[in-house]
């Protein structure tokens, strides 16, 4: 068994801070040769020399290579961070995004000289509309929370156009923190609602709070407990009957591609995360891309410029007078869109459906294998993720945090912990479809061994991790006496 533990000892190299390296007179930069005379600059405009270290190329490369080895990525191993969909990031996508005709394209080229990028954006919007079942898409939002903001602005603009301004929005207790924060930017006050004893929303709960001063509901489906909101159609009806709109946080779309029709279930507006379901890398926290998908009634309000097709050519159009306007400087994170486009073209319709099926299979497999060892608050077929808690281990005074930190010693990135907030001590596992069965088995073994250790040697959990570059860090002092720059 011990040789099956992925975590091992290795040589971890120290590396100082960047400015503790280098020496004046070195450089790693060979700019184009000067072929014009030096012009005089008004001395009043010129700043002091920048306090940046001067490094040679070898110092530069060693510095960042060593730093990179202290990071755990999907390329390193299983990263079951629930709600974040840390699936494998195909390498061909990087090749495509780096093609000079895409990577070097200036955003303000005359459209007839930028047909490739425009066609790609146009097609991607069409494909995402097809995958979700929605009527139109804008790829302009820069990340998931930006897509949420777009969605809220669309709702706001739609209601305003109908002279029906409202002050509240319903947000379930399982929502991502970004949901209330995005709604607040449009002045909507969140009305929290609780899930039922099945872990999903009841139609009655929504009917009780939905009124004509409520803009609608922000629902995540599958929700953050990993469960499908079975009553979603009825809930949508309740919201629509009072003139409201249904917003779906599509962060968890990875479970439903080719399976559920979002338009059919009454969703008016939905955002996707291309860096989740569509395999673009997370980059240590972005860049992402958060396309917003709408049904017919919200189409006039989509952000501009919109990519339009005129016969065989593509253009950018501002001719949408009801649009909410622009969300970022140009058209969004085009470089990320290229990777998502490449992914959709690589998988095709059957591949995408298979992705969702296997994502759900992997999550249910882990759920079945670990239930009993860890407490499962909602024992139903889950979607792409399953949520345990630490109530069994709490009796041994071991917490979710200890379990998560100990998993690092076994060579796994921990799951999402303490979220969703409705499950105290939540351990949210999203294996994704790209994890082979052997890895799931290793993860399951590790989790079982940690549960044994909690009984036999809880100290080893409380003091974990033992094998990482650093051990537990003092976050309290970091926040009380912030040191944000060197």
């Amino acid at each position, binding site marked *: 068994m011990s040789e099956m533990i992925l975590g091992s000892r290795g040589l971890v190299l120290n590396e100082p801070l960047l400015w503790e390296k280098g020496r004046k007179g070195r450089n790693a*930069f060979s700019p184009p040769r000067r072929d014009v005379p030096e012009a005089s600059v008004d001395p009043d405009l010129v700043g002091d020399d920048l306090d940046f270290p001067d490094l040679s190329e070898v110092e530069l490369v060693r510095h960042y290579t060593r730093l990179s080895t202290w990071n755990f990525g999907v390329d390193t191993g299983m990263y079951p961070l629930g709600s974040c969909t840390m699936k494998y990031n195909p390498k061909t996508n990087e090749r495509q995004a780096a093609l000079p005709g895409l990577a070097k394209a200036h955003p303000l080229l005359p459209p007839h000289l930028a047909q490739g990028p425009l066609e790609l954006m146009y097609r991607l919007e069409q494909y995402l509309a097809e995958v979700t079942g929605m009527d139109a898409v804008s790829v302009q939002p820069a990340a998931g929370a930006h897509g949420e903001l777009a969605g809220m602005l669309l709702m706001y603009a739609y209601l305003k156009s109908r002279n029906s301004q409202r002050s509240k929005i319903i947000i379930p207790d399982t929502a991502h923190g970004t949901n209330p*924060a995005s709604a607040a930017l449009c002045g909507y006050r969140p009305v929290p609602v609780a899930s039922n004893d099945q872990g999903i929303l009841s139609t009655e709960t929504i009917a009780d709070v939905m009124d004509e001063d409520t803009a609608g509901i922000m629902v995540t489906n599958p929700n953050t407990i990993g469960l499908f909101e079975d009553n979603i159609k009825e809930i949508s009806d309740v919201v629509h009957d009072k003139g409201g709109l249904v917003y779906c946080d599509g962060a968890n779309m990875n479970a439903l591609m*080719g*399976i559920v029709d979002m338009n059919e279930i009454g969703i008016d507006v939905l955002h996707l995360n291309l860096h989740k379901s569509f395999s673009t890398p997370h*980059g240590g926290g972005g860049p992402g891309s958060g396309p917003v998908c709408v049904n017919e009634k919200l189409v006039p309000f989509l952000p501009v410029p919109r990519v339009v097709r005129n016969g065989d050519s593509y253009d950018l159009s501002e001719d949408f007078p009801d649009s909410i306007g622009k969300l970022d400087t140009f058209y969004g994170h085009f*470089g990320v869109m290229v990777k998502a486009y490449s992914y959709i073209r690589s998988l095709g319709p059957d591949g995408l459906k298979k992705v969702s099926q296997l994502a759900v*299979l992997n999550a249910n*497999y882990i759920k079945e294998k670990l239930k009993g060892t860890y407490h499962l608050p909602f024992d139903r077929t889950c979607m792409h993720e399953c949520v345990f808690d630490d109530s069994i281990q709490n009796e041994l005074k071991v917490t979710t945090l200890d379990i998560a930190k100990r998993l690092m010693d076994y060579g796994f990135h921990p799951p999402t912990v303490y979220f969703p907030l409705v499950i105290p001590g939540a351990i949210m596992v999203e294996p994704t479809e790209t994890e082979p069965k052997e890895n799931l088995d290793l993860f399951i073994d590790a989790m079982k061994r940690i549960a044994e250790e909690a009984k036999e040697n809880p100290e080893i959990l409380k003091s974990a991790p033992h094998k990482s570059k650093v051990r537990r860090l003092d976050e309290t002092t970091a926040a009380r006496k912030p040191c944000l720059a060197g």
Partner: protein
Amino acid sequence: MRYLSHTPDDIDEMLQVVGAESLDALFSNIPQSCCCRLPLNLPQALTEWELNAHMDSLAGQTAVSPDYTLFLGAGSYDHFVPAAVSYLLGRGEFVTSYTPYQPEVSQGTLQAIYEYQTLATRLMGMEVATASHYDGSTALAESLLMAIRVTRKKRVAVSQLVHPLYRRVIQTYFDPTDFDVVELPYGSDGRTDLSKVAGMDDLAAVAVQSPNFFGGIEDLSAVADAAHAKGALFIASFIEAIAYGLLKSPGSLGADIVCGEGQSLGLGRSFGGPGLGMLGSLKKYMRNLPGRLVGQTTDVEGRKGFVLTLATREQHIRREKATSNICTNNSLCALTAAVYMASLGGTGLRNLAQLNYDKAAYLRSELSQAGVETPFSAPCFNEFVVRFSNGFTKKYEELSEKKIIAGLPLECYYPELVDHYLLCATETLSKEDMDLLVREVTS
């Protein structure tokens, strides 16, 4: 499918454990009325070989260098990126990790972003800088909202020489609020006219971009005085970060918040995104900052380490009372900027900035000597405005057929500036490129 590892035997074995008869049966609790009635209507899967051919053909339909010569900047700049920078940014450990919620296995990202924050503060002349925002426009919109939080006032003044597309993003962010955006006009020298500021009430911030959209270097000390006289914060915005390799930093001239676009720092143009939203402030406003921050601390053995910090400002803790809704930001772009700045060093960045200044000075002077009008007298960095002869549009099109993009027509952003064009010259354009442009536009 090469990204999926499951063999038919794996699937059977796992289905048995789960107690489902088939993959479809895993979804049997979803009401039938919610399900897709038809298979997805998408193009069939391509092999990697076919995909390459398809993508090559899409990418082949764009006007890019070296085939084309572009005098086009306007918030997206062509700079030389050393191979070592691109190479390091390919490291899977950086690219395929996520937000460093688990610091013990994320020290690479955390130290690199801490170093980015440090270089960013030095470049902008600020005391603290955030981990990143989406781009220069959203960083500015969030800065304005921050100033409103800090001052508890409701009006902001924004220069008309802030990038016109940034101003449209501000409009989008402000539309559902009861906050007021007033525009400051520009003067005949191509710099912001501050005379209106003194008469404004309830002013939270004055936002001015330098170099401004016309490429002109603003008198930032004067903006600071005008803003502070009204009890407002001075927000300095920028779209060309390289300029601060040469020019005095906005912080040294009195800015309270500095924000802008970091695309120039090693990122490709990539049809406009992803870029890098940079944002810094004085330390006293730290707890009002939007977005992620990395801080230094120690571990239980006293070793130096880094964590995400001041999370009580953020959406996952404060929810609707958060300072921003941002979660995923542009971390890899911040890392790119850090590696790029480290590659250049202080000496390299100063030399590069001077070279940019000189290229534009050369082009401006050659055009001027050839009789082309340069209507604004303010000093400029690597971009400037010219007024070509009446009806230059036709010539512009002819030049684009000759694979020269003669700048950005300004009329659609500033209707009063008919026949005016914004020209950009960075280190990637040669003297020959510029001489050719001068000959062509004056022939």
